[in-house]
């Protein structure tokens, strides 16, 4: 009797949690219902965590003497881990969101790996299937942990340059093979009865060490602009690891939640890869820099610099402006000033829209969040497919801190490394202003034909400084008109 009621309660709570997660994610499909969606999912989490303490009624006989200590440890871990993450999550700047998500994701992967470690060191897995699934979850979780930490380091600027060396893929492949061999040997040894799992701790340590090293090696060579894909991949990995460990622990809530996230991560990964016109394996396993050393067709025309104030005043007297913000805007912290400028234009009856490329920013959709933070209403924000035809009707395309995503070479130049990548057709607008810090090339290291177009003027300078000049120019205009 003592075990049936807790079992029933845990089962019901986990069922409720699984439902609430799915329902919560469903509600996240519209900006209107999304805030309640995360609340619903959060409710599911609280229910599941509270119920999980009922496991205390049904622990193994060996663990019974430690029960009081273990419950205490669980409380401390919940409060410390949850509290620290909550505090950091409330405090973090929106521009730092990608590295924060990478960090939380790594934690999840680490937790899944640690659960697998407890199972392995305790010799708890029963049968070959369970053992193989435990090891698979351990491998994926550990890779997700170390890989996410490297991704965090790169996004946070701790690690500045992608680390690439000759024969890197070979080394990575060997480390991965070694991990599989050690894991396979563990399964073989245990199943053949040569050694009980509990007697092989060294091999388990080795297995985890190899998996962690592989995660580091795999992430180090990947460049900053490919991070949206990397974060999606590791999100999917952690989901998968959680799902697999859910099977080992015979917990369907973990299985469902893990697999839902795995599928979500996979979908986002494919979307991002499509937006870059590259395959996922190309992004993860090849060096982008090496591909771009190709001959490029000569670009005719010249770069025409323009004054920020003149550009601002020009936009004040047109009908429609489409703004293409890129990561450079976020780097310059120019979102607030940009919206201030947009509001000035709007009060002068200029229609203003934002066009967002899927890979603008360092994680999927980051630019949307940064604009939302600055107060830009989301009905002004349009995605590539929805706005691309409208550039032809727009009077001005204002490109701020974006480069490769507006390069017409992707449409026309078959020899270009970005050929075929979906781009925003800023060049089709009657007039184009490009706000840029200097004459440098974009991430892909290629010239941008847009900048040399007859209809394009370059406004050089830091995005925020340029926007301040534009605002001042337009505002002084309004004052003199009123006077």
């Amino acid at each position, binding site marked *: 009797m003592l075990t049936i009621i807790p079992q029933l309660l845990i089962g019901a709570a986990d069922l409720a949690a699984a439902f609430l997660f799915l329902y919560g994610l469903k509600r996240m499909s519209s900006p209107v219902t999304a805030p309640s969606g995360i609340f619903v999912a959060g409710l599911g989490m609280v229910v599941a965590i509270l119920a999980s303490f009922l496991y205390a009624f049904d622990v193994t006989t060996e663990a019974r003497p430690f029960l009081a200590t273990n419950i205490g440890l669980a409380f401390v871990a919940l409060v410390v881990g949850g509290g620290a993450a*909550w505090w950091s999550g409330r405090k973090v700047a929106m521009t730092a969101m990608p590295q924060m998500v990478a960090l939380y994701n790594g934690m999840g992967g680490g937790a899944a790996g640690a659960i697998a470690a407890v199972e392995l060191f305790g010799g708890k897995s029963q049968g070959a299937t369970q053992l193989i699934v435990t090891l698979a979850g351990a491998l994926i979780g550990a890779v997700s942990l170390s890989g996410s930490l490297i991704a965090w380091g790169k996004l946070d600027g701790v690690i500045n340059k992608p680390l690439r060396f000759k024969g890197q893929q070979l080394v990575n492949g060997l480390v991965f093979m070694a991990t599989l061999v050690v894991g396979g040997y563990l399964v073989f040894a245990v199943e053949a009865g040569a050694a009980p799992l509990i007697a092989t701790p060294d091999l388990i340590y080795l297995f985890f060490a190899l998996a962690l090293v592989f995660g580091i090696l795999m992430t180090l060579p990947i460049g900053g602009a490919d991070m949206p894909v990397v974060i999606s991949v590791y999100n999917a990995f952690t989901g998968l690891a959680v799902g697999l460990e859910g099977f080992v622990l015979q917990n369907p809530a973990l299985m469902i939640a893990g697999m839902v996230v795995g599928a979500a991560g996979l979908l986002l990964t494919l979307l991002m890869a499509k937006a870059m016109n590259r395959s996922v394996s190309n992004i993860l396993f090849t060096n982008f820099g090496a591909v771009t050393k190709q001959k490029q067709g000569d670009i005719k025309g010249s770069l025409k610099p323009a004054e920020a104030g003149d550009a601002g005043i020009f936009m004040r007297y047109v009908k429609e402006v489409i703004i293409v913000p890129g990561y450079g805007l976020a780097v310059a912290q120019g979102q607030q000033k940009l919206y201030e400028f947009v509001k000035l234009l709007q009060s002068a009856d200029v229609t203003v829209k934002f066009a967002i490329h899927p890979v603008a920013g360092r994680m999927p959709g980051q630019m949307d969040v940064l604009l939302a933070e600055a107060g830009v209403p989301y009905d002004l924000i349009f995605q590539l497919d929805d706005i691309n035809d409208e550039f032809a009707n727009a009077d001005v395309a204002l490109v701020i801190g974006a480069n490769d995503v507006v390069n017409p070479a992707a449409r026309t130049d078959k020899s270009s490394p970005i050929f075929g990548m979906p781009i925003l057709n800023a060049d089709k607008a009657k007039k184009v202003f490009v706000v840029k810090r200097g004459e440098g090339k974009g991430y892909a290291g290629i010239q941008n034909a847009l900048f040399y177009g007859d209809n394009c003027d370059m406004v050089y300078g830091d995005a925020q400084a340029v926007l301040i000049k534009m605002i001042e120019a337009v505002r002084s205009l309004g004052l003199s008109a009123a006077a």
Partner: protein
Amino acid sequence: MDFSISISGFVALYIFMLAGFAGWVIIGHVPAILHTPLMSGSNFVHGIVVVGGIFALLNASTTLEQAIGFFAVLLGAGNAAGGYAVTDRMLAMFQTSEHQPAHAKSGRAKAHRPKKG
């Protein structure tokens, strides 16, 4: 009556398949504008791993198991709490033109303030 759960072989595969399909369909309907909160939201959902961590920790019978179990709960709790905090913050920012957030209104007022002189 027995309420213990036993999932083996094909039942597990069925659960994985259906859950994966549900995730794919649900996430496929989320507009691109919400992709960042969606990612941190799904990141939050796999924080459910903390429940597995609690199970492992409560059943730990050696110091090593206790240490790793503690680590699992610590990380899992961080995943769940952090994921929720950032997702909630981001989603609160999305506003339509009709429902301008308070800080944007004050920004607008500032924008119309005449310059010195």
